[in-house]
């Protein structure tokens, strides 16, 4: 009896040791990101790794983890060792400043454009030929329309949708009460709230639920042109929200793992012409004017507003709309 057991223990120890050894042999960084940026970083990572190798001679592997953005931010706060985070809304980085000081408070100043390498916006994806004639936000609040959005509580994607609809109604009705009524009617049309953007997409495309999916432009184009099998059309509303995607080094983790230098270089790469080109190829609107000009046909003109311009900034939005018991909770509870 003794020999097989000790053999097993020794075998196990070897396996553990080997896997630990393999992890130490090369530098690695972990990029924790939101749900619909999967394809982008899958493309970007190897290009950066080969650049890094050419520059420093160091083998680098960039690992990625994706999910609803707020859920991902909470995982990082709970100890998921991300060297960099690439999110789609500022609050998901701010929360890491508040919780345990994982990110430097002045993270917006570390990179150009308030540390946002690209923007996108919320648009509609409808079934081919637009059978329900969905043209603008108004149509989403009509009775009998099924609207698919990810959960605004766990996903930046859903949050932007909510805020875009709010901004539209604020313009149209001129009052907060009007906006609230509109948002309430719109969310009454939402049959299911997925945790992240990609979950909402599969609900709409694979499970055939709803008449319209509201999601980021890049995701909508990706589905309409590449993955959806020519079964969907994109509709641009009259106005939408500017969704700038912020990035930051998770200072506390990078300091501990001694990866600050490579983490910063990785994020700077996103702003370089080469990085911007890859970003544009994945249908995100690049910051670099030259790259944007080159791909301008991909990105139809759409009037957008920022959270700062129309809604008083993220802190106000957080307190006013998304805190426990705030307007969003009241709206969703009112639905039942």
């Amino acid at each position, binding site marked *: *009896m003794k020999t097989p057991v000790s053999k*097993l223990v020794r075998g*196990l120890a070897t*396996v553990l040791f080997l*896997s630990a050894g393999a992890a130490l042999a090369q530098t690695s960084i*972990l990029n924790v990101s939101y*749900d619909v940026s*999967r*394809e982008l970083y899958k493309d970007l990572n190897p290009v950066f790794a080969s650049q890094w190798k050419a520059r420093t001679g160091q083998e680098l592997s960039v*690992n*990625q*983890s*994706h*999910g609803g953005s707020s859920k991902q931010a909470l*995982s990082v*706060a*709970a*100890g*998921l*060792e991300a060297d960099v985070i690439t999110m789609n809304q500022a609050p998901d980085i701010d929360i890491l400043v508040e*919780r*345990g000081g994982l990110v430097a408070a002045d993270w917006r100043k570390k990179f150009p454009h308030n540390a946002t390498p690209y923007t996108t916006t919320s648009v509609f994806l409808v079934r081919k030929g637009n059978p329900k004639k969905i043209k603008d936000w108004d149509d989403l609040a009509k009775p009998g329309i099924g609207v698919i959005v990810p959960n605004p509580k766990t996903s930046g994607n859903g949050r932007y949708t909510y805020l875009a609809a709010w901004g539209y109604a604020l313009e149209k009705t001129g009052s907060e009460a009007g906006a609230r009524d509109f948002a309430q009617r719109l969310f009454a049309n939402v049959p299911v709230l997925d945790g992240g953007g*990609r*979950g909402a997409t*599969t609900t709409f495309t694979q499970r055939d639920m709803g008449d319209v999916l509201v999601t980021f432009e890049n995701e909508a184009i990706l589905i309409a042109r590449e*993955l959806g099998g020519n079964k969907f059309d994109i509709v641009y509303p009259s106005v939408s929200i500017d969704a700038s995607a912020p990035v930051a080094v998770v200072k506390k983790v990078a300091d*501990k793992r001694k990866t600050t230098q490579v983490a910063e270089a990785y994020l700077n790469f996103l702003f370089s012409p080469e990085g911007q080109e890859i970003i544009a190829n994945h249908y995100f609107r690049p910051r670099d004017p030259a790259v944007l000009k080159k791909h301008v046909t991909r990105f139809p003109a759409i009037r957008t507003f920022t959270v700062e311009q129309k809604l008083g900034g993220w802190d106000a939005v957080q307190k006013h709309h998304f805190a426990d018991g705030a307007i969003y909770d009241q709206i969703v509870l009112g639905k039942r």
Partner: protein
Amino acid sequence: MAGATTMNPGSAGSRGLTRFEAKAATRESPLVKWTILGVSLSFFAIFLLMPLIAVFVEALRKGWETYLTALTDPDALSAVKLTLLAAVIAVPLNLVFGVSAAWAIAKFEFRGKHFLITLIDLPFSVSPVIAGLIYVLVFGAQGWLGPWLAEHDLKVIFAVPGIVLATVFVTFPFVARELIPLMEAQGREEEEAAVVLGAHGFQVFWHVTLPNIKWGLLYGVILTNARAMGEFGAVSVVSGHIRGHTNTLPLHVEILYNEYQFAAAFAVASLLALLALVTLVIKSWVEHRAAQAYKVTEDAS
């Protein structure tokens, strides 16, 4: 829950069944018999067989080459490795625990015995997601032990130990649940006889108890292993979803599916399905052997 099944070797005997059929009073009309059979078979076909076939059809939709590429992808291989590692640790741990718990409960009287039985069942009654969250609350950076772990540079959640812990938790009751009724039914007489004949503790266990429970034990191990490899909820919460590092097979299936790599997702899913089929075959074999062993002892007495 799947694990709540208990093996019953006695029912395998067919002598009772023929007598049941032969008596007019207990015989059902052919119509009733065939209706019941038809209902259960169509249920089986729609809810079990069809999805199983669908998995393999979808997996092979784009040909063998895509299928093999999906399975030999480095991320898939690392998911296989991690899944096996979690099972290799969870199964022996729960084997030892299950045998000692069942032994204690079946052979001894002590205070809090019922409380212990209830505790063993806890992983069945708690949602696996809650189980995962418990570990995040305890071992997370802001959890009870988080700061201490960080100080000593130990990683539990969002790393391999967390996945193993979650797996151990959800597979905890299988062996014990399987053995407790078996050992209770067998009673203490044989062990007492062994002691009277001069055997000491370990000899009693090795030569008397273990041979008596071996088929039940094996059955429990098979169930534990199947659940350990298939667990999704609890592992999903503590994994962190770092592909190539903290993804188990079920999590890898989810990632592939979310990336529109349907053929690859189903290819990996087919691996899990194959595992389930193999488990079933071994399970029936064990049941068969156990029934035989039971018959032999019955005939002998």
